[in-house]
């Protein structure tokens, strides 16, 4: 069964460092998303991406964050200068269609900022 894959599964970084989280969405999906979940809190929407541009982003997704689809398969989330409060589990998701269907989530990348 096709699945969304994410790497790395866990990354530890120093505050102020740049981090890139990688995702390979399901191959025939057209919509891509990043969500995050701070430990013990709810899952929060960060950004959605379609047709090589951002469809929508949340207030969390400030100038320190960026997304890219550098080739036909990868979808990346970059955090330019990490802060302690960026420590969270980051989930990539993809869907065939927006607004009408289910999202397929990866297993997540745990980011720990020291």
């Amino acid at each position, binding site marked *: 069964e096709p699945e*969304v894959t994410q790497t790395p599964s866990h990354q530890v970084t120093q505050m102020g460092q740049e981090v890139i989280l990688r995702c390979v969405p399901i191959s025939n999906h057209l919509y891509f998303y990043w969500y995050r979940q701070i430990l013990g809190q709810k899952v929060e*929407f960060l950004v959605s991406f379609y047709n090589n541009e951002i469809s929508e982003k*949340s207030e969390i997704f400030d100038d320190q964050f960026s997304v890219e689809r550098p080739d036909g398969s990868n979808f990346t989330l970059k955090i330019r200068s990490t802060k302690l409060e960026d420590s969270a589990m980051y989930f990539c998701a993809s*869907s065939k269609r*927006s*607004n009408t269907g289910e*999202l397929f989530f990866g*297993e997540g990348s745990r980011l720990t900022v020291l």
Partner: protein
Amino acid sequence: SQQGEEDPQALSIQEGENATMNCSYKTSINNLQWYRQNSGRGLVHLILIRSNEREKHSGRLRVTLDTSKKSSSLLITASRAADTASYFCATDRNNQGGKLIFGQGTELSVKP
């Protein structure tokens, strides 16, 4: 902004019993979805109910939606120890680029 809130926050039952979780939200929606998350894992889609539907079944799952009360319930019948997980509702508004708003979740523990 809309917000999904589940209750109870935690639920502990014996294997074979039914588990009911509720979700409330604040604004109009296109659809409401339920996801499951095993500890430390990703979210798995369980079921989607559209705003014009009132009830939906999938295996041992039954979801209801009351748009007048802005609430939904998820019933798991004949629970199994393997159903132990956190369950989240997520709401989807029109023209929101696929953005889902998740609730805090219900942590279900099914004891063998």
